[in-house]
């Protein structure tokens, strides 16, 4: 069974994964344009991109425990998931800045004055060098430092989880579940993290 999954995974080119997982971006945008996201489409569009980004970051965190505990090997897609996550974070940021907040002065004010936005922005900044080095040339060039650098994902995903908890009003279950999953996935590798 596991061998068959691994064999199938080997046959799927990464560009197929890119294509499939990018589809929700234009589709959600189309829904927002056509009234499918309700009468105030900016917020749901912004939130959907953010939610997908967080889900992709979490999916990326699943890859190595999956290999360790079940021997399902999806390592080849991990970078794909990371780049996709960054893409959705960038879309989330763009919708927020251009369609929601709308002026550069207010964007800067929000980043400085509102802690949950500061935290979200910090997560984006941490992901930037990771996105920029997600290519074979950088992997070769950075050598062992590449792995170290890419451990920034762990911090970025926690910031993303806190950003989500902090932005909802009152106490809501969904962001707490995301955070629990994130912390559980990080706990699985705590020994390696200490090294």
């Amino acid at each position: 069974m596991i061998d068959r999954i691994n064999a199938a995974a080997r046959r799927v080119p990464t560009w197929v994964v890119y294509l499939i997982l990018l589809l929700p971006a234009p589709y959600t945008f189309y829904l927002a344009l056509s009234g499918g996201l309700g009468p105030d489409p900016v917020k749901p569009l912004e939130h959907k991109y953010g939610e997908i980004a967080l889900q992709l970051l979490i999916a990326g965190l699943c890859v190595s425990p999956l290999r360790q505990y079940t021997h399902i090997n999806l390592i080849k897609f991990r970078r794909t998931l990371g780049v996709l996550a960054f893409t959705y974070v960038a879309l989330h940021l763009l919708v927020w800045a251009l369609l929601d907040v709308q002026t550069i002065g207010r964007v800067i004010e929000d980043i400085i004055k509102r802690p949950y936005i500061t935290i979200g922005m910090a997560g984006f900044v941490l992901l930037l060098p990771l996105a920029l080095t997600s290519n074979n040339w950088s992997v070769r060039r950075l050598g062992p430092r590449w792995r170290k650098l890419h451990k920034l994902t762990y911090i970025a995903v926690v910031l993303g989880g806190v950003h989500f908890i902090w932005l909802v009003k009152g106490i809501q279950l969904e962001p707490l579940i995301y955070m629990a999953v994130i912390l559980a996935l990080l706990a699985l590798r705590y020994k390696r993290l200490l090294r």
Partner: protein
Amino acid sequence: QDTLEPNAYEDITQYNNYYEFGTGKGDPAKNAHSLTTSPWTVKIDGLVDKPGDYAMADIMDAMTIEERIYRFRCVEAWSMVIPWNGFELADLLAMAGVQYEAKYVAFETALRPDEMPGVRFPALDWPYVEGLRLDEALHPLTIMATGIYGKDIPNQNGAPMRLVVPWKYGFKSIKSIVRITLTDKEPPTSWNKANAREYGFYSNVNPEVSHPRWSQASERMVGGGLFAKRQPTLMFNGYEEEVAGLYEGMDLKANF
């Protein structure tokens, strides 16, 4: 006031914050059908001459329903224009006879775990409670809404009777009211209990007092579409002329 263009009925009734039925904007419209609104009684007690359980039907018989087209501004920085049907809260309070010592009015929403799926999770400390200073409650702009666009108010909008205070953020306009208590002390209010740093007792719409989460200087008008420009938020949501006098001499930054 006469230039206000009301939002579509669908926008007003499909896009709601009513956490007793879920925290998503579409959840109340999906879930609130389970709320039994007839029969309905409202307990009016505290510092009144005639405390007791008032049947909703009797209240409706005694009140004169009129239309009020008001701006509605949510603390989340979106807004609508809503054609309410209802009566002045002052008229209802007069029915019960407000006593001289009363200084505040406390309100309470129904709490029905069997009919409200959202209250299974403590998003807020249920039941939802709100309050006004007596002079705010008696102000002619303050109404109890029982309809929208001439139809009975839908459950998701706070049937059978909800408060509407158009110069305050929407969460002050408490829905599906089962109890009104006249008191001499400032009553607790739900969002203030949940986060006192972010939500004050007054919660007047004020573009100059920014909320820790949202700049309140501007707003998105619901129904404007994906590329609509934000609109500047007006002092007291555009009702400054009518209500500024209530707060003369008060520091509105300290009393947010």
